[in-house]
């Protein structure tokens, strides 16, 4: 689970040994059935103050569950709610739009609307600009604000907090002319801020008042291992150190920070990350009960001292605890939504387990941070520190701490409060129990409060076979992703025998067949099926093997036996249409075309009577060609300097582009040039499914690159690469994979990404689903850090593809044997297929379809 923002001493001072699931499955079911009766009777005016992640989760839940009242959200920030957990990714290249949550239909959102007063009597809230909004139900989701300790110089130019996108913009601007930065606060968010400063090119220091880093998550031993990791990255770490003052130069800008011991740390950027305070001032001024140390007092149903007003998220104080973690905040939102809908949902003390990767170091904490006994595993060479806290009989797990390797978090967290599946030292040395039987009520995903039992029943009832399916059905793994390794294990253990067999002819998956072909050097389908399969194949395995052979060995797709493996589209190198004719799509790399070539396409279409349409991939599609016309059409195109293109087949389709910096006044890089280079590099690359790409010349993203398998967006420093995007049936925005790459670096990363996908994906699995199953972090490790040691091989494979590419269509024209196949009838090569007929429509042809007349036995 990840923090919504830093916590400070006012929050999370609960007994960490307590394991709780705030809403049991039964309670959820009750709540839902209760809601069905009540929801239709509401029709109430609901006003939400604040628009952050928790508010978003609240309204999303209400809308999903059919709340029929009017929802108005008043947000103080000038922008809609965004994913604050992913805040730092904004500096790494994600745009504000990437992080922004959608606003559900029917919800009125007023931005820049700071609420200044609540008239509880009249049930009206007023905003700073004088607007009055009446309510029947009010929800306060005002969040928290960063705590800035009262040190001299805290308001100087160059001092910042780390909370909003605007803060990050300001930090980025200030970093341009700076060389060094310091973060005050060595907690989770402080280290995240330090990572951001380092990413902005600053020499970075962290000042922590406590005796070690991340005192909330790790003990002293873990803290010192963590310190070693962070110092190895070149960051300065000052623990047990406060701030005496922040000093400025003659022009009033920050020049450094003075510690109590008098040492000065030079810095032009200072970021305060010393915890947060609940934003309870509105509740306070309206007379609602607030805690002694801040926070709006709520009951188990998230109701404040006024029954018409709820409070959720970081501003709420439940049972003496303010929560800064995303998981409990989301649960609060769901409980409040349930109560608003008439349910009985209740919030209970939440699990504060945390797992994250900061500055490349895994840090995790779960359950209690003390116990009668503890067992520690430490490897100073690799910088791994793992500690388990257990009961005095060493049988019950109370909690654990991990630095450097969080495997125990994944495997052991569900056992907190339960009997351990082995001796603690053995579990630490072996990385987890060999045979792990999780109890059904063990929580697997703490962000979304999903139990092992819920995951198992979703797998069984919905017949799920992959992580993507579990995410879709249960929400587990959709927020911070730290439970994905466990979801994979549950799938394996679920007993649902997932057949990986490609078809009746091969018991292997596509990825396994790929390895067999690669390792054994198999070059023909006949050899593969004779040695590793049965029968003579089918329309599933033949094209799959054809694709594997093409990916690994190149050569023309109609060479020898391979010709018999191809689907009709690859066999005729064109795209079959519903009347049995084909369409031809000349390759127009990057969508750039000369007027002369455009005229040739028009002439070809006119001379062959082809229906002509502009495609979504910046090409021109020519429809209605009979097989015997295809070579004649290609000939005309080849003579004019074209090749035909793949609008079919499991291969690269197009690389779209916007016009880029050459012409566009906003463009920052030559997107067209890059798109052409990429299309020419990857054309003809056979893959498990089609591959689409696009290049945008600036952050406005006119080429829609984030809907592509690999999309590139220009930055002022270079290129950002996004992967795993998809349109179609299940749209998915691509994930940021790497930022500010040079063109050479970009191409290398794409080469490896594509080859790793080709090597490991299932048949007809787009990069989007493949990425969900592999996990973004894992693919990054393989491609960017070469964690499997295969990058040299992937590079070489792509080099072979690029060097071996030849125009497949021209190769047909140059080979009489292949040409002879392009006839409608072998015994009447001159006769066109009489079943094909056209009628005019809007000045072009359209096929006359033959009425269906199935022959029934």
């Amino acid at each position, binding site marked *: 689970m990840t923090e919504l923002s830093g916590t400070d001493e006012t929050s999370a001072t609960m007994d960490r040994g307590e394991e709780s699931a705030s809403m049991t499955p039964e309670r959820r079911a009750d709540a839902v059935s209760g809601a069905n009766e009540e929801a239709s009777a509401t029709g109430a005016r609901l006003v939400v103050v604040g628009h952050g992640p928790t508010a978003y989760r609240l309204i999303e839940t209400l809308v999903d569950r059919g709340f029929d009242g009017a929802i108005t959200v008043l947000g103080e920030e000038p922008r809609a709610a965004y994913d604050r957990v992913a805040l730092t990714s904004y500096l790494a290249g994600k745009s504000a739009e990437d992080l922004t949550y959608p606003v559900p239909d029917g919800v009125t959102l007023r931005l820049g609307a700071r609420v200044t007063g609540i008239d509880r009597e009249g049930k009206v809230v007023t905003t700073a600009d004088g607007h009055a909004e009446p309510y029947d139900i009010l929800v306060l989701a005002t969040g928290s604000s960063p705590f800035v300790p009262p040190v001299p110089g805290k308001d100087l130019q160059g001092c910042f907090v780390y909370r909003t996108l605007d803060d990050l913009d300001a930090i980025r601007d200030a970093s341009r002319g700076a060389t060094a930065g310091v973060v005050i606060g060595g907690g989770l968010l402080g280290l995240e801020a330090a990572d951001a400063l380092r990413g902005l090119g600053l020499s970075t220091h962290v000042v922590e008042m406590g005796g070690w880093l991340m005192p909330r998550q790790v003990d002293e031993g873990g803290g010192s291992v963590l310190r070693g990791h962070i110092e190895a990255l070149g960051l300065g770490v000052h623990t047990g150190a406060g701030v005496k003052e922040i000093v400025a130069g003659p022009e009033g800008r920050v020049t450094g920070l003075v510690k109590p011991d008098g040492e000065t740390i030079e810095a032009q950027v200072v970021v305060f990350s010393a915890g947060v305070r609940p934003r309870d001032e509105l509740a306070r001024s309206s007379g609602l009960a607030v805690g002694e140390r801040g926070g709006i007092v709520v009951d188990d149903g998230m109701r404040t001292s006024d029954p018409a007003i709820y409070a959720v998220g970081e501003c709420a104080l439940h049972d003496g605890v303010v929560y800064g973690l995303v998981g409990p905040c989301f649960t609060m939102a769901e409980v409040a939504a349930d109560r608003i809908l008439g349910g009985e949902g209740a919030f209970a003390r939440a699990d504060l387990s945390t797992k994250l990767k900061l500055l490349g170091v895994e840090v995790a904490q779960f359950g209690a941070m003390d116990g009668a006994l503890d067992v520690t595993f430490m490897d100073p060479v690799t910088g791994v520190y793992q500690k388990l806290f257990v009961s005095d009989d060493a049988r019950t797990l109370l909690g654990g701490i991990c630095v450097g390797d969080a495997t125990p978090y994944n495997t052991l967290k569900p056992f907190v409060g339960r009997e351990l599946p082995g001796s603690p030292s053995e579990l630490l040395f072996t990385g987890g129990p060999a045979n792990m039987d999780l109890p059904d009520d063990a929580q697997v995903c703490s962000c979304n409060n999903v139990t092992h039992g819920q995951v198992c029943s979703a797998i069984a009832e919905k017949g799920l076979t992959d992580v993507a399916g579990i995410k879709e059905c249960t929400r587990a793994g959709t927020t911070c992703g730290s439970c994905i390794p466990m979801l994979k294990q549950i799938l394996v253990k679920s007993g649902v025998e997932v057949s990986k067999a490609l078809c*009746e*002819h091969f018991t292997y998956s596509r990825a396994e067949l790929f390895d067999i072909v690669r390792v054994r050097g198999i070059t023909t389908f*006949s050899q593969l099926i004779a040695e590793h399969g049965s*029968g*003579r*194949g*089918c*329309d599933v*395995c*033949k*094209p799959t093997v054809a694709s594997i052979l093409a990916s690994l060995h190149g050569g023309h797709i109609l060479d020898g*036996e391979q*010709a*018999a*493996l*191809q*689907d*009709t*589209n690859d*066999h*005729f190198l064109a795209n*079959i249409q*519903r*009347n*049995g004719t084909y369409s031809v799509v000349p390759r127009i790399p990057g969508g750039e075309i000369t007027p002369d070539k455009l005229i040739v396409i028009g002439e070809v279409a006119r001379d062959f009577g082809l229906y002509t349409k502009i495609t979504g991939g910046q090409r021109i599609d020519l429809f209605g060609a009979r097989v015997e016309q295809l070579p004649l059409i290609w000939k005309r195109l080849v003579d004019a300097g074209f090749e035909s293109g793949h609008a079919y087949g499991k291969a690269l389709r197009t690389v779209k582009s916007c016009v880029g910096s050459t012409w566009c006044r906003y463009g920052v890089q030559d997107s067209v040039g890059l798109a052409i280079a990429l299309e020419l590099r990857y054309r003809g690359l056979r893959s498990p499914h089609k591959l689409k790409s696009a290049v945008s010349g600036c952050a406005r993203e006119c080429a829609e690159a984030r809907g592509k398998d690999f999309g590139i967006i220009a930055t002022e420093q270079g290129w950002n690469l996004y992967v795993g995007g998809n349109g179609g049936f299940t749209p998915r925005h691509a994930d940021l994979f790497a930022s500010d790459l040079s063109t050479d670096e970009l191409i290398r990363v794409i080469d490896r990404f594509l080859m790793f996908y080709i090597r490991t994906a299932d048949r007809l699995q787009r990069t989007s689903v493949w990425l969900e199953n592999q996990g973004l972090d894992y693919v990054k490790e393989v491609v960017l850090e070469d964690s499997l040691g295969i990058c040299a091989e992937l590079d070489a494979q792509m080099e072979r593809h690029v060097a071996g590419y030849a125009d497949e269509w021209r190769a047909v024209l140059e080979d009489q044997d292949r040409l*002879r*196949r392009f006839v*409608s*009838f*072998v*015994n*009447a090569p001159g*006769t066109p*297929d*009489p*079943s094909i007929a056209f009628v005019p429509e809007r000045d072009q042809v359209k096929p006359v*379809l*033959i*009425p*269906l*007349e*199935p*022959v*029934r*036995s």
Partner: protein
Amino acid sequence: MTVLSEDLHGDLRESSRSTGWTPVCAYTDLMPERGACVLVGGRQIAVFRTFDGSLYALGNYDPFSGAYVLSRGIVGTRGEEPTVSSPMHKQVFSLLTGVCLDDAEVVVPTYPVRVAGGTVEVSAP
């Protein structure tokens, strides 16, 4: 209907209702595990050569899509049965019987086919 050599003839029932054999192409014109379409008396017939060299002939009309395309499907096996799958929507037909193995109610016609002197001959009524 399979003919392994030119000495073998089609089954009598099939031959009896056919109007005779029409030569359509050289045996070597057919690629192993692919089909080709021939026009016989205005009828489109898909002729297939399987891996073991056997020949089969089905109507070229795909009853699921309404297009004349079966000759362009992928040839394979299901169990022991030689098959072709429609290139449109992948329904699989038996090359032996013409029955659709995904929907046994749907059948396409089969035709006798043989090799005579290196020439493929089809018999259509």
